[in-house]
């Protein structure tokens, strides 16, 4: 494991797994739970958040020496809000169907704590390149959680995957729609907010189980090294 916290590898591990904004920091839960009814919605919001995060992290990192620390939060919020507005206008122009189905949750990206959190905790203290990489990885980590939850709820709720993908990716994407099984009656709970909470809880539990397993394996390995008492490295 690299010791440099800004190394590419460390940033990746932190963003995608160890410090995942969705599963570990539990930030941005509102959109996470609200729009993950289908994979398409999740992907749309995930991409939008990723782009906003990337833009805001880069700009915040660029202006970090110019902004007095007393007013840094309003400045960060302004920067984030401008990026959100850009994304919102773009989505309105090019993916209107998805724009309508995501509704209020696009402007609400401004209030996503994951973004302001990264601006405050990372971008305002680091150079542009690490800030950009961090944004990319955190955004990807968030998007992956959105996708996992969206897939889970879509499969359980209506037995499909990528339903309505053409809203996001253009008419060709209609072929992406996979019907896993046909349900006579939809499992409404998976589509409703309680289903999102339960699904999210299960995802976090799954991550914790995997982490516990990994740690067990590691400590088992460490146990062997500890057995060499004297003269051992470390």
């Amino acid at each position, binding site marked *: 494991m690299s010791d440099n916290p800004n190394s590419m590898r460390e940033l990746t591990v932190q963003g995608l797994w160890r410090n995942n904004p969705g599963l570990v920091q539990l930030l941005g839960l509102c959109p996470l739970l609200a729009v993950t009814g289908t994979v398409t919605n999740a992907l749309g919001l995930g991409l939008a958040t990723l782009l906003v995060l990337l833009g805001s992290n880069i700009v915040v990192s660029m202006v970090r020496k110019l902004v007095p620390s007393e007013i840094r939060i309003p400045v960060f919020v302004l920067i984030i809000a401008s990026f959100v507005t850009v994304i919102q206008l773009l989505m309105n122009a090019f993916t209107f169907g998805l724009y309508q189905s995501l509704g209020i949750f696009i402007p609400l990206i401004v209030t996503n704590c994951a973004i302001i959190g990264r601006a405050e905790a990372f971008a305002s203290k680091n150079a542009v390149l690490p800030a950009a990489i961090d944004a990319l990885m955190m955004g990807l980590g968030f998007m992956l959680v959105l996708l996992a939850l969206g897939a889970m709820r879509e499969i359980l709720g209506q037995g499909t995957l990528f339903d309505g993908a053409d809203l996001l990716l253009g008419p060709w994407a209609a072929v992406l729609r996979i019907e896993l099984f046909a349900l006579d*009656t939809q*499992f*409404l*709970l*998976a589509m*409703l907010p*309680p289903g999102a909470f*339960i699904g999210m*809880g299960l995802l976090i539990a799954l991550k914790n189980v995997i982490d516990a397993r990994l740690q067990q394996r590691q400590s088992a390995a460490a146990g062997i090294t500890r057995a060499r008492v004297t003269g051992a490295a470390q």
Partner: protein
Amino acid sequence: MSFKIASSPHNRISRSTSQLMLLVVLACLPGIIVQALLFGYGVLVQLVLAIATAWAAEALIMRLRAKPVLPRLKDHSALLTGVLLAVAIPPYAPWWLIIIGTGFAIIIVKQLYGGLGNNLFNPAMAAYVMLLISFPLQMTQWLPSASLQPEALTLLDAVCTVFSQYSCSGFSVSQLQTGIDGISMATPLDTLRTDLAAGRTLTESLQQPVFYGFAGAGWLWVNLAYLAGGLVLLKLQVIGWRIPLAVLGTLFGLSLLSWLAAADTNPSPLFQLFSGATMLAAFFIATDPVSASTTNQGRILYGMLIGLMIFIIRKYGGYPDGVAFAVLLANMAVPLIDYYTRPRTYGHQAKGAGK
């Protein structure tokens, strides 16, 4: 003279959890039998499915948690959850409904919170609510009582209907729901609700055959049977009197008031007590020792809250019966109730002192 010194709890009848749970299940039997006779054998099929699923789910989770399986199965708590859910859902609901419901009750509501004794919510009722909001159509497929059913359903028919939604002779559930006169029949509470909303008076509404003049054909007997079972439990001191009395008393009092105020648009107190799931709720569901309040004073408050909620949901709510929601809402209030009704330890904290 010597006094016997024993540490608390000073309980003269010491029953194990397993015995208690089994007694509750046995006390459900009169209700189940009446339900099977009056509403068709579907409930028996549901019971078998529910119990099998409950045991399987419990065993699965115990295996995952690397704990001994058999002692947990033998405490009969999973059995009770399965039984309560099976009698609560419509008897001819499709087979997957009860399996999803029981699995949810045991795995999510009970075991994910830490298993028996740790669950915040009543597993059967939480599963019922989950099913009701997920599958509203299937969960309201109540058939009229057997005397009003145009086709007599045998046990084999019940199995066919639960598994395929068509009886062996090919009638669909919605056909079975339809009475002799071709009018689809709902439960008495539901019918009354629709009628009152349509501007009919209580007396006009009660003319319909589904009421049988009073609380509804069949429903009265089912409730009486659960009342009998509940009284036996009271007599054996398996459950305390506070929760059932508070539930029934509050429901009775409120419906009496509303009935006296406007007798044409409010069902009578006795109708409220003997229709829907009132008795089942008061004696078997609200008294769940795990999710109910644990102090004496708190139990009365808890029961009153359930009674109040049942009344409010039946009168103003969007669903015809509100037992499950009422119990869950009261479950949520239990930590607060317990906090404020903690009994004073003898010798500590005199009234007005401290705080």
